[in-house]
């Protein structure tokens, strides 16, 4: 029988990792990831988790060691956040190019300067191009479930691509909720031990992670891109298989909420989804045709799903805890790239909020919908809006 525990997001990740039976955990502490690695080290100590725990001296080494682990065909786990994620940035590209299906938890946190330990999504979004699959979860249950799914997707022979599970720092990592813990036996059936042809062994010695000349390099990058695109079908299949076994379906690439017949839809990433869902319900009660699209995966990007939905709506708002300085939010850029493939694309607005941990309230979300409705009615709205700024600007 599965049981329910009242745990934090960090603890949910640790339990999801334990259930996935990694061979080696290499990690370096950083707030707000720490509880995850503390719990994992306790599980190793107690014998509950039969894995080696490597106390590496940095995030760069955490990733480097994880690649070594994966290169001999063992299952690797690591976890980080923010500055730590950037410190291992070299390793992120290296791991995806080497096709090492490492799974990593990233606690989304702001980037210095100014220093901030609080949440936003600038860390992982600034590494969209590193070749990692990126999923953003909404709650602790999804965090736990996605660690298990992550291994299944990443280790698929048509994918062999590392996988980053992102959860909002503090809002998810340090808040508690009831989480259903899948049974180990069922997880074992769902996720068999790691098997890969992409490893060094004494039966079949290999020279790995080699150099290419301009004559070969592009073909490797093409294959890497193919693998990432292949993961779309695998993500959807794994979501279904997981749902069939554990009774929780997440929708694969995206999750729609009350989007049928909606005129105005807000796109979200991560924990803000819950707040938006409440406001959608409230507006629906008021008779407004609104919906929510939770973008689950930023890479691969749910282009097809967005195009399908966008063809039916009048306006899209993107809520994101991110900015690409000198332009707009990165999620917005990606969404608009998908919209550009439509003949008659709906209008779109970008709501930048929650940076450095700033609160995003229900009324903020409500006002975003109002802004979108105004835009639909021809009232001019700023395309990129900073939500909850503490000062007036003359823009």
């Amino acid at each position, binding site marked *: 029988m599965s049981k329910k525990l009242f745990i934090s997001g960090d603890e949910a990740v640790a339990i999801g990792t334990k259930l996935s039976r990694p061979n080696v955990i290499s990690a370096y502490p950083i707030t707000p990831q720490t509880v995850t690695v503390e719990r994992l080290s306790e599980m190793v100590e107690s014998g509950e988790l039969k894995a080696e725990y490597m106390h590496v001296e940095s995030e760069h080494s955490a990733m480097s060691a994880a*690649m070594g682990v994966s290169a001999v065909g063992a299952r690797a786990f690591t976890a980080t956040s923010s500055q730590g994620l950037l410190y291992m940035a070299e390793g992120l590209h290296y791991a995806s190019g080497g096709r090492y299906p490492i799974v990593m938890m990233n606690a989304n946190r702001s980037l210095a300067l100014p220093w901030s330990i609080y949440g936003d999504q600038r860390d992982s979004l600034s590494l969209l191009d590193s070749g990692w699959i990126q999923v953003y979860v909404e709650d602790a249950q999804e965090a736990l479930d996605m660690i298990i799914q992550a291994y299944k997707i990443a280790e698929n022979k048509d994918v062999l691509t590392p996988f980053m599970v992102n959860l909002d720092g503090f809002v998810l990592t340090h808040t508690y909720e009831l989480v259903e813990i899948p049974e180990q036996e069922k997880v074992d059936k769902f996720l068999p031990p790691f098997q890969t042809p992409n490893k060094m062994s004494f039966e079949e010695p290999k020279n790995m992670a080699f150099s290419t000349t301009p004559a070969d390099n592009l073909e490797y990058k093409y294959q890497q891109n193919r693998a990432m695109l292949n993961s779309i079908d695998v993500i959807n299949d794994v979501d279904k298989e997981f749902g069939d076994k554990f009774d929780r379906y997440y929708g694969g690439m995206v999750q729609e909420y009350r989007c049928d017949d909606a005129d105005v839809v807000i796109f979200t990433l991560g924990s803000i989804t819950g707040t938006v869902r409440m406001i959608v319900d409230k507006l629906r009660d008021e008779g407004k045709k609104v919906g929510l699209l939770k973008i689950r995966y930023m890479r691969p990007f749910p282009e097809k799903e967005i195009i399908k939905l966008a063809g039916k709506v009048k306006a899209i708002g993107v809520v994101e805890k991110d900015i690409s300085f000198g332009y707009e939010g990165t999620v917005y850029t990606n969404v608009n790239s998908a919209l550009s493939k439509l003949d008659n694309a709906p209008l779109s607005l970008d709501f930048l909020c929650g940076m450095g941990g700033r609160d995003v309230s229900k009324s903020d979300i409500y006002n975003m919908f109002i802004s979108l409705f105004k835009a639909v009615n021809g009232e001019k709205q700023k395309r990129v809006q900073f939500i909850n700024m503490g000062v007036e600007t003359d823009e």
Partner: protein
Amino acid sequence: MNNTDIKRITPKNITDKEFFYGHKACAGCGGSLAVRLALKVLGERTFAVLPAGCMSAVGFIYPQMAFVNNAIISTFPGAASMASGISVGARALGLKDYKTVVFAGDGGTADIGIQALSGAIDRNEDIIYVCYDNEAYMNTGIQKSGLTPYGTKTTTTPAGKNIHGAQTFKKNLFEIMAAHEIAYAATASVGYPQDYIDKINKAKHTKGTSFIHVYATCPTGWGIPTEIAIQIAKEAVDSGLFYLAEYQNRNFKLNKNPKSFFPVKDYLLKQSRFKHLTDNDIKIIEQQRDEKWEYMRKHWN
């Protein structure tokens, strides 16, 4: 295992098998010799990890792979941590009877890789770390590293009227490693191959982390004819500018303690990287050498 129990590997019984060939290293390369000899000692059940540097640049150009055994390029700073991951990962899978060795240059070890290396020694990972020291960033075109000796002309320490090449002395790498109370550390030179082979063999039979700092000639970067590559590597030791030593169980040991030194000037001026040195520069180098030897003779053995 007691060191005396180790079966000695000599020119008479060393394997004819080659594990590193078909690479594109320069003629007379000391680094490639260090890799070749080490792998003959360590054997085929070895994972080799090479960070960015000469040996990874010449050994892994797709599709011409130069290692017979398993080998992998790591990130530049991440050789020791990747080797750690391999060693631990293989153990976690239940593999037995294997070795994990790093071959990294002086820059990859003493500069950019020292953090990961320090971490690996701290964890006492079961790895052997070989630093082939050719005294500059040779792969990128002879730039100064933390192990470039005083007075060396490199492409980033030009020898001009105002500054005569590198103004710093070699980082004290061997003692930095020993300060970790590492399981085994040694210095060696490709000019003394039997000594080097013995030390690799000792590292092979050491549980925990071993570190071997091997002085490795670079004819291209040093400006010497290839045929004196080995002679120069001997003279570096004979002149006292490099030394052969070991560290184990908190003890330092000098393996070679010459009564008199080969003339420093004769060693230096054969190499175009030192041709500009004045008598005063050479005096500074000798003085530094003498201070070092006074210290070693007093405190080691």
